[in-house]
């Protein structure tokens, strides 16, 4: 049981560590790295589910017919989703870092607590 669950448990732990980092740190760069960590852990969970559910059984144990597995998607659907998420994560990382650097060049400091201009 633990053999197939270990990557799932790892992804949950990585997500929690990333969330703790985002909440605790004040440096926007490290907060951003923790966000990347959380995205990566979600990818890991998706890949694990895709690996283990990549082909559904034709019949349930009670010999109930399922829909044919071709209508449920093929074996590489999860990999494609993870690949698309990776691409979006790359775009997001680049835009976020550009925003952080622009803020740094304007204010000469990086501190997430000081960035409160938009507060009403």
């Amino acid at each position: 049981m633990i053999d197939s669950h270990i990557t799932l448990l790892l992804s949950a732990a990585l997500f929690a560590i990333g969330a703790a980092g985002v909440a605790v740190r004040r440096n926007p760069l490290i907060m951003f790295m923790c966000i990347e960590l959380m995205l990566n852990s979600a990818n890991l969970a998706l890949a694990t589910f895709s690996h283990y559910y990549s082909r559904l059984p034709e019949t349930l144990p009670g010999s109930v017919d399922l829909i044919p597995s071709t209508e449920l998607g093929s074996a590489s659907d999860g990999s494609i989703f993870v690949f698309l998420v990776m691409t979006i994560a790359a775009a997001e990382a680049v835009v976020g870092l550009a925003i952080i650097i622009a803020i740094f060049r304007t204010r000469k400091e990086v501190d997430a607590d000081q960035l409160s201009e938009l507060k009403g």
Partner: protein
Amino acid sequence: MIIFVAKCILSVLALVSALGVAFSRQAVHSALCLTFNLLCVAVLYLLMSLHFLGAAQLLVYAGAIMVVFLFAVTVLAPEDEMLGKWNDSYRLTGVAVAALLGGCLIAVNRTANLRDLNSPEAGSLRQFATDLFGKYVFPFEGTAFVLLVALIGVVLLGHRRLRDLDRGGPSRD
């Protein structure tokens, strides 16, 4: 069996490096720990016979994104004395909420009914390419568009005229 042992070792390494990302004093150490963590996850993908994902993880995350991160850390290096500061008021609350979240996730994930049904062609590159350029060709092209928009946006964000550089103020256009 040996795959299970390798998964365990990689999981421990990934956990330790993730803790290094979140709680190390310097941003450079965080970036290097994040690189190591992404490498561990890439090897985990390979062990799950998701070969393309392992290669893409290496190229996209550990290659491209980490270069950008290290560049940003280098640009922000003069502020080194505040890079290790902590958000003291939220320290306990943040860790407690994250621990609660992780506990809930682990409790839910333990109940997942995973059956090892992977067919021999589950992670094969041929099937992956057929689906990516067949069924999912429009999302694939959509990511190309998103990357183009991100590229233009980053150039606009980073663009500055020379007189603004002299004055030290932000770019107005």
